């Protein structure tokens, strides 16, 4: 059940979106590209007035992030090791501020990264001190790309997607439009996670290829 983790987390609605792309007027893919997004619509406890300290909600969002990451993977009908791209985003209702959307960076990003096999130290990253290692130290090494905005109910957000292990993999630069009809209301936030199983369906503009990742630093 959603929303039982904390007084700060009060989920009204969960919206999942999964698309299978067979082609885009070129050769039909052997296996369709699967892209998905999950959006939780929750009450914004900081709506309506300025709160200097909003950090408590960041930690309170951790269980929700884990639930959403798992539920998205399940809705996409694939195992976590099939996920090659990811992204995240937030749409803050009219009585909130953009900064409230920023609360999602750590709990949203690390929930997905841990699901996909990240082995790092979340506490160190939360404190802004990411670790460095050599070889392939697990999966989901890349920063999780994101967008956020303040918007009305039904606002569309283009959530960027990049390769989970190397941000520069050109075939996996993509974006998925996410929109929840009727949300967010003024006192709500829509928090979004997005994943994909591969490259753009007809990727052919060169650049770093996924099989050529070598530095394992999240970039190349």
């Amino acid at each position, binding site marked *: 059940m959603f929303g039982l983790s904390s007084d700060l987390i009060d989920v*009204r*609605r*969960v*919206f*999942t979106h*999964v*698309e*299978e792309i067979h082609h885009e*007027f070129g050769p039909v893919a052997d296996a369709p590209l699967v892209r998905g997004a999950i959006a939780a619509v929750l009450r914004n406890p900081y709506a309506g007035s300025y709160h200097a300290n909003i950090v408590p909600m960041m930690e309170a969002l951790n269980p929700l992030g884990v639930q959403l990451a798992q539920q998205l993977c399940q*809705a996409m009908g694939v195992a976590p090791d099939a996920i090659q791209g990811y992204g995240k985003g937030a749409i803050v209702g009219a009585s909130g501020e953009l900064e409230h959307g920023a609360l999602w960076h750590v709990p949203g990003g690390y929930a997905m990264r841990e699901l996909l096999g990240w082995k790092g130290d979340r506490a160190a990253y939360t404190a802004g001190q990411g670790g460095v290692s050599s070889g392939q130290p697990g999966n989901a090494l890349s920063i999780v790309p994101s967008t956020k905005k303040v918007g009305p109910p039904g606002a569309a957000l283009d959530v960027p997607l990049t390769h989970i292990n190397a941000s520069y993999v050109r075939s996996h630069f993509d974006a998925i439009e996410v929109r929840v009809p009727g949300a967010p209301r003024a006192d709500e936030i829509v928090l979004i996670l997005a994943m994909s199983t591969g490259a753009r369906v007809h990727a052919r503009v060169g650049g770093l290829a996924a099989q050529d990742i070598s530095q394992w630093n999240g970039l190349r």
Partner: protein
Amino acid sequence: MTAQIRKIVVQVDEVLQEGGKAVTPPTRRALAMAVIANPYAARFSDNLDELIAIGEELGGLLGARCVKALGIKPADAHSYGKAAIVGEAGELEHAAALLHPKLGAPLRMAVSKGAALVPSAKKQGTLGTAIDVPLGHKDAAFVRSHFDAMEARIHDAPRANEILVAVVVTDSGRPHPRVGGLQVHEIVGQDGLR
């Protein structure tokens, strides 16, 4: 004729609370959409048999996708609806060919029974056009708690030569229905109306 499908999109909308009051169990609506090539784009044809056959194929495919997304047994489906958006190089009649002659029977198989008419909407449109798919109880059209609609939209479809076909299946009515009318427990389920 087999549908030339470019993409399939499935959405589930789960409402856990509304008006500050918990919805128990949560209401859930599933929407499955297919974007297909319109075999009659940019030409007039008296005969629309290809689209009629594609409608039959998609009724089963999209109905099953909805039921799977909800994770329910077919008999646990409550309401349904269907819609189509025809790209600029097609005609409104192409949506009618998809939706009306043959889409319903396999959709009813997917949700088991389905005595009631499948409510529908159609329009012409372009990339990102939204259509509100009307919903009604699958066995009794007069069940007031299940009159609803779900918005269907794909940002990059339909292209001029395409048609977006949408099917919605739910396992519930509206959150907190309280405007009376025929109730689910009063359904007879024979004539499709009550």
